Structures are given as C-alpha cells and as structure tokens.
C-alpha cells in the first residue's frame, strides 16, 4: 500500500510538476501575447474622415486586399454608407509588422458617430487602452468629438492626436493643432499629420499605436471577465456578441453566464474579427473577439454587460453598465390598417439587431392599430423609419414624438408614474406635478454665432452654464436644457442659424419639474388623438398654431365648414377655418373621352376610401404624414 501510495504520489508530483510547467509556459506565452496586443478606437466627428482613414489602415496592414475594398469597409449597412455615419460599432483585427521585428495585433474598435448613441460609445471606449483623436484639419474640433474625447480621457485612454485631410487647401494645420494642444495638453510634435485620401501619415499612425498605446493589462489566470461592447444579429448564426477580454480565457464550449441578465449559454464558437469572423479554440485576456451562443433575440444581450464563466458565478462585473433606456417615444402606424401584422413583423426583425428599439401595441381612434415605439433619440427614430421603408417596404405614419415624463399624483406625490404617450397624462386636477428629462448639451461654434445660438437655446428653455473659448475661433457653450426641446426642429434650426458651423452633443442629466400640458387638435370639436402632443405650456400656442395652419393646407375641403382647433383641456388656443366645398364638377367632356373622366373620379373615390374619419371630417393619411413636418 505504502509503495503504491508513494508511487502514486510520485506520479502525481511528476504530473503536477509537468502541468505547472505547462501552465507556466502557457502563462508566459499569454503575457507575451498580451504585450503584442493594442486595443484602440477612433474618436472623430461625422465627415472628419474616420471611415476613409480606417480603410487605409486596413489596406496598409493588408487586412483587406485592395480589390476587396468597398469604400469604407467598416460601415456595412447601406443606410450608414449613404448617410456617411457609423450607426452600429464594429471591431476589426489587423497585424502590424513593426521595425523591432515583432508582429503586433491591433484591435480597432469602431464607435457610433451620433449623439443618440453616447452610451454605446462609452462601452467601446471602455474596451480600449488608446484612442486616435481624428480631427479634420479644415474644420477643427467639434462638440461631439470633445465629449467623446473627455470620455476617453476619463477612461485613462492614451490619446494619439491625428490631423486628417492635411492635403486639402483649406487645411488650417497650425490653428487646429493649437486647439488640440489646448484641449489635451500634448506637445505639438506629438500630433500626427495624415490624409485618409492620399495615405499620408498612415505609417506614422500605425507605429505610434505600438509606441504610445500601452498593451492591455489583465490576468489570464483570473476567472473570465469580458466586456460586451456590441452585438450584431446574423440571420444564420443568431446574435453575435462582440467583447473585450479583461481577465481570464474564453474557450469554445465553455459554459458562460451574462452577469446582468443572469442567463447562461454554451459558447458554440469564439473567434477574432477580421474582415470575416475567424474561429479560434480560445481567446485570452487583452484580446477582442466574438462569441456565438445561439441567442436568437438581441434583447438578451446588453451592451456593457460582463461575460463570466458559469462555474464562477461570483465573479465581479466590469463597472459602468447601464440599462439603455429609450429617450424619445412616438406612435408608429401602418398607412393601411391591414398591414398591422406586417409592421409587427418588421419591428421584431429590426429589434433583432437593434435592442435599443422598444415597441408595444397601442391603438388610436384616428389611425387604428399601431405601436408605441421607444428610441434613443431623434436620429434613431429617423433611422428606424427609413429602415422600415427601405428594408421592409413599410411606409408608416409617425405621431408627434415625445420624451418620457414622470407624473406625480395628488393622492400620492412620492409615487412616480411614467408617461410616454399623451393619452397617459392624468387629468390636470389629479396631478401634483410633472417632471421632464433635462440634458447636458454642448455646442461648439464660431464666436460670431454665439448670439444666435444662445437665443435659440434660451428659446428652447435652455440655461447657459458655461462658455469656454477653446481657441480664439472656437467657443464651447454648455447648456442645461429639456430633452423635449431638441425633439422639435432643434437640429435644423441650429444648423441654419450657424450656417453649419455648430456641432452639438448631449448627455442625459436629470429630471426637473415642468409645466407640461397636453395639446389636443380638434376637427369640428372632435379630438384627433394621433395629433395630440405633450408640450411645455409656453410652447403650446406656437405648436398648436403651426399644426392648425398646416392642417388647413392638407385637409381637402368637404361639404361643410371645418373648424381646426388646438386646445389645452377645454381652452382653445389656436383656430383655423376651412371653408366648405361648394363646387366640384367637370364642365366639359371632351370628344367622348369618358374613360379619362371615369378614371379621375375613380381616383377621387379611391382617395376617399383611404381617409380616416374623425367625427364627421374625413382626413387623408397624407395629412398625418405631412402635418408634423413643421419646419417648412
């Protein structure tokens, strides 16, 4: 027994020794590998050339052969390419052959470039150790760049400033360099000059990434912690999760658990992201990759969540997770009532790859059955509408958008009631008070536009909290303002009064007391529920008047006079009158052309069929589509 025991011990020891050595070697390998990884993102304003420069980096590192190159390879939705903005972020891995003889792994994480997606940006930033700050040399720094830059600085990212488009005649290299130096306190010689178009400076950038951005720090031996920074829906594979490994190792067939949802899945496949997905048996701390678990709905994936191993359920989460909440709500209705189920299908499909879209059925007297949808912001709403039309051939009627309000009743003033549709606003007599969301808004502009921008923001109930000159020719204005005010024609106005020389960014701030009313539109005394809007009392009259004037234009005359009114409760605050139609007759029927006349009348009748009846008034669908375009 002794001998046997001994021998077992000896074997065990040998085995253990061998294993430890292997693990040690493996660990050293991991650590070596980690030293060769660089994770970075690109911070840039729309149009500042991020996509083009990214393409050059991919080409230079031969990640993509030139012939495979579709311009701006990273934006893969048509809509994105057309609008020139990156809506959903992606990641791509490239290999850089450094002069020191080593091959480095670069994980470039793309970031969405619009104000509505700032949380997503923050998660992409959290997955990196460094950032390229890309600034258009002819335009200078824009508001959104600054807020993303500060976010990156807050996360201790190493910033590599890059002046892009330096080959352009209008490039102001000195001036924009001054702006950058003021902003991040770097040395002038640290700013790289580049042109995505001609390829100038691409090598300098690739080199600076190794030299300046630190390698990731993480413990491959610690339990798995991976940060989800994005996900995409693939109709064959289900939801594909993009993550950054902070600690530990993820292997194929690991049982993983998502910290916040608490759900567990089998890792069917893990791998790295090149132009296509490349499957790997495992990925280690410091790297960026994808995970496929067969999840079918993207709602189960929350950006910012932490992937851990199911066998270590007590592993900590990675800080910074937030539940993404819709900020703007609107009713979306099919133009034809029969298309309701199709619309539901389409929204479900959109939600598969856009978990931030929410919807639930609602109904309207005027529009029939539709959905109350929640969006991250106005751009997000626009994108959804456009995708419905483009990808699903669904043209829809969208009601007046509103933000999410909190109502408090007299009977229990501490209990918060969430209001995201005008119909839910309780009767004023029952209301204790209402609160509305405020945002922290930054506008960066030229000094000559300060006056008009301040008056615009003030008119939008904004409070100026700070005015900072970034340089002599660039000023940053910071406001606190109600989110509701940027829902209506804010962007367009900002753009026109500044002739395009103003950039805008915002972050949610808090909820504040508000004098909110429900504006109703009435036709001959009957409410048009689809046109009701939640609006601040001081804005109600202006909006009401605009809608009435527009409706007068859009409604066909009928056999009786139509009173178009805007009302708050019983009080009428605006009115237009549409006179009755009294004559509708074709005098002459040319040479026996009965067909033309019949077809005209058939069309007239067809149009009538598509009208919605509000009381005794017939309203064409076109009116619902057009009435809310109040800018023109």
């Amino acid at each position, binding site marked *: 027994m002794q001998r046997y025991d001994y021998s077992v011990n000896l074997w065990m020891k040998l085995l253990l020794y061998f294993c430890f050595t292997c693990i040690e070697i493996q660990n050293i390998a991991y650590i070596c590998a980690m030293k060769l990884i660089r994770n970075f993102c690109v911070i840039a304003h729309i149009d500042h050339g991020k996509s083009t420069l990214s393409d050059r980096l991919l080409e230079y590192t031969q990640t993509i052969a030139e012939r495979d190159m579709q311009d701006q390879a990273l934006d893969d939705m048509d809509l994105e390419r057309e609008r020139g903005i990156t809506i959903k972020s992606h990641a791509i891995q490239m290999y850089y052959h450094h002069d020191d003889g080593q091959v480095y792994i670069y994980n470039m994480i793309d970031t969405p470039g619009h104000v509505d997606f700032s949380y997503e940006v923050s998660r992409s930033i959290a997955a990196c150790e460094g950032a390229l700050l890309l600034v258009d040399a002819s335009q200078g720094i824009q508001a959104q760049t600054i807020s993303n830059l500060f976010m990156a600085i807050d996360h201790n990212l190493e910033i590599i400033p890059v002046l892009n488009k330096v080959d352009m005649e209008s490039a102001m290299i000195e001036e924009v360099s001054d702006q950058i130096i003021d902003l991040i306190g770097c040395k002038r010689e640290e700013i790289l000059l580049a042109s995505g178009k001609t390829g100038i400076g691409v090598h300098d950038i690739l080199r600076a990434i190794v030299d300046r951005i630190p390698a990731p720090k993480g413990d491959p031996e610690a339990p798995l912690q991976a940060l989800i920074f994005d996900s995409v829906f693939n109709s064959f594979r289900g939801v594909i999760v993009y993550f950054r490994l902070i600690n530990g190792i993820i292997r194929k067939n690991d049982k993983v658990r998502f910290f916040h949802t608490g759900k567990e899945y089998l890792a069917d496949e893990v791998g790295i992201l090149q132009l296509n997905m490349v499957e790997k048996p495992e990925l280690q701390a410091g790297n960026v990759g994808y995970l496929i678990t067969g999840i079918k709905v993207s709602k189960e994936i929350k950006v910012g969540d932490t992937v851990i191993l199911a066998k270590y359920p007590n592993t900590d989460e990675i800080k910074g997770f937030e539940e993404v909440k819709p900020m703007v709500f609107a009713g979306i209705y099919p133009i034809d009532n029969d298309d309701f189920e199709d619309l539901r299908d389409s929204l479900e499909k959109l939600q598969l790859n856009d978990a931030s879209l929410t919807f639930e059925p609602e109904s309207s007297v005027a529009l029939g059955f539709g959905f109350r949808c929640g969006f991250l912001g106005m751009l997000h709403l626009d994108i959804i509408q456009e995708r419905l039309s483009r990808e699903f051939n669904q043209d829809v009627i969208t009601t007046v958008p509103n933000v999410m309000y909190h109502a408090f009743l007299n009977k229990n003033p501490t209990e918060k009631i969430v209001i995201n549709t005008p119909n839910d606003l309780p009767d004023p007599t029952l209301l204790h008070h209402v609160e509305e969301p405020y945002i922290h808004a930054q506008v960066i502009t030229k000094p000559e536009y300060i006056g008009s921008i301040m008056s615009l923001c003030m008119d939008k109930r904004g409070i100026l909290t700070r005015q900072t000159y970034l340089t002599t020719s660039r000023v940053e204005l910071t406001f606190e303002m109600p989110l509701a005010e940027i829902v209506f024609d804010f962007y367009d106005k900002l753009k026109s009064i500044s002739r395009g020389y103003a950039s805008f960014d915002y972050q949610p701030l808090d909820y504040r007391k508000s004098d909110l009313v429900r504006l109703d539109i009435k036709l001959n005394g009957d409410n048009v529920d689809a046109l009701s809007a939640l609006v601040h009392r001081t804005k109600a009259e202006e909006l009401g008047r605009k809608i009435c004037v527009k409706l007068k234009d859009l409604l066909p005359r009928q056999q009786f006079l139509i009173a178009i009114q805007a009302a708050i409760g019983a009080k009428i605050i605006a009115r237009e009158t549409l006179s009755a*139609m*009294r004559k509708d*007759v074709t*005098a002459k029927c040319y*040479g*026996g052309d009965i067909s033309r006349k*019949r077809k005209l*009348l058939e069309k*007239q009748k067809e149009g*009538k069929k598509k009208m919605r009846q509000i009381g005794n008034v017939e309203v064409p669908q076109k009116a619902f589509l057009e009435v809310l375009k109040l800018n023109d």
Partner: protein
Amino acid sequence: MISFSGGLYLHIPFCKQACHYCNFHFATSLVYKEKLVKALIKEIEITAKKFSNPELKTIYFGGGSPSLLTLDELALILDKICQQFNVDGVEEVTLEANPDDLTRDYLKGLKALGIQRLSIGIQSFHEEDLKWMNRAHDSHQAMYCVPLAQDIGFDALSIDLIFGYPLLTDEKYIYNLNKVNKWQVPHISAYSLTVEEKTPLSKGIKKGLDKLPDEDAALRQFTMTHEILEDYGYEHYEISNYSKPGMHAIHNSNYWLGVPYIGIGPAAHSYYSGKRRWNIANNQQYIRKIESGEDPSESEIITSQITYDELILTRLRTKWGVNLSDIETIGAKYSAHFREKVQELIRKGIVQKSDENYKLTFKGMLMADHWTAELFY
C-alpha cells in the same frame, strides 16, 4: 362581322393659336394638315371595314378647329364617309367653328356640303375677355358671325359661352346671355372655366400672373345661367348644356346615353363592341401609324363595374337620369349598391327620384363629380 349604328366623331387637331385654358389636343402649325386629312380618310375606310354595313346617326367635326379645313378638304372627308357608311339615317351633321373663320363664302360652302349644324366657339362678346383667353377672334367677329350664319340658312346653331373666369363680372355675363337669347339660337353650351394641368392658364396661375377662378362668382354665374336661360325657354338638359325643346345636341347627348361612336383622328375616342379606344394624341405619330397600317389606338375593356360606373357618370348629369332597371341589367350587386348609396343623396336633396329614375337636382349639379364618385361601385 359585327354591325355598327351610332355616331362618327372626327378630330381636327389644328388651331390658329392656343386658347390659354384649353387642354385638348391640337397643333398650331398647319404643316401636316394635308397629310393628316389623307390619314383621316384612310382611317375612315379602315374603321368602316371592321363592320358589316355600318350606319351613322350623327357626324361631328370637333377639334381643334374644324373650320380651319378648306371646303375641298371637308368634301373629301364627307365623300369618304358617304362611301364607307350608310348615311341614310343621319339626323345631325355638326361642325365646330370659330367666329373668325365664318366668312359668307365659307358658310355657303358648308351649307352646300350638307353641314346642318354649327357649334360656334364665341365664349364671350367682350374684347378684353377674348384677349385674356387668347382667342383668335375679336368681339366684332363674335357679334356678326351668328346673324351671318342665320342669314345663310343655318338655323341649328349652338353657341359656346364660358363663365367663372376672373375678368367676367355678373353684368358682363348677363350681357352675353342676353345677346345669345336675342338671336334665338336653339342651343347653348355654357361652361364653367376649369383650370386644366399643363395649360398656359395653369402655368400662369402657378407663376402668380393669373388668378384662380373665383368660386363664388362661378357658382353665382352657374345659377344665373340656369335661371335666366330657363326663363328664356331653354331646358337645362345637361350640366353645361341648354336647348330649346327638342333641340338638344344629338351627337353629344349620345355620349351620355351610351350610344356607340367611332372616333377618327389623333386623340379621338371611340366606344363600340364593349371597348373604349383612344387614338394616339400626336399628329405626326398618328399619320405615321395610319400610313404604315398600324393601329393608332389603345383600348380598355369595359367590365361590368366600369359599365355601372360609367352609367352613373354619364346619365346622372342629364335630364334623362339613371333608370334602376338599367342598373339591374348590369348586375344585382350594382343595383343593391346604388339603392343603398342613393338614399342618403335623396335625403340631402342631391338626387331627385321619379318612379325608378334618378337624376341630380340643381343643387346636386354643383358638385356632380363629388356625388358621382360617391355612387361609384
């Protein structure tokens, strides 16, 4: 072979100048007139040959300006018609004419060719109105063409008037109506100005050079026409048409009464053998197609629904009205639909019913299109 008995319409697509409100098909260059007349003659022959012993009840030269045809050209066309069709039963031969074309010799020639009835496009007797319309004639020609035609022996005259245009005051319009009544012409067409797309008038309005017709004035003048002409012994037998008893336009009324017709010439419409057809609205292409033996027309088949809709469309606006039995012939679902829908219109005073016959009241006529569409299936 199928038979034919009905009207013959000939479209003469030329005008001296373009009236600003007109969207009919015409050209102001006469370069192709000779070729076109030849093509018309050829089309008459081709069409007539589709039928066995086709017979005509009415012949109508419309346009455009048929009075731009020379007497020789008219003779050629009429000869061909007589050669190809049985014309023994013809009740009416009408030619649309412009006052500026009606010289004594031309009128005599028309009479000699067998034209019985003239429809004269006077429109107004006021010089400034005619200028505004861009008519080719002046007020002097407007004043003298009617007595001249009567002098030559044309009793069956019809006069076109327009109302509801910005320059026309009620006083000026009453003057026009009285003038026509004084001559005791048996037929008057009084059209409310319609702004048609792609006319110089609609373009002018878009540019702000012209005003839209005033609806109040148009309604007033429509009412005036009805009241004054009925006082003078005219019968309001179709929305825009008035006649002395028994003197209604046979050819045009047949459009409303569903009688078949053959249309000859560019943009002309036909209705026979359960189809509506229309020729291409382009002179050169029409000529080319006829010369090369191609069919210049497009057509549509008249389904039972179209038959019903057209019955409503054509009959409701006339004094003859719609008979329920005619609707029942098309199909029971149509008569059920009609019966259900028409109740509301009777209640509103839009439609009047006597026995099983329905027609628009005067009130209903003001929005005839609206109510017609309402009754469509």
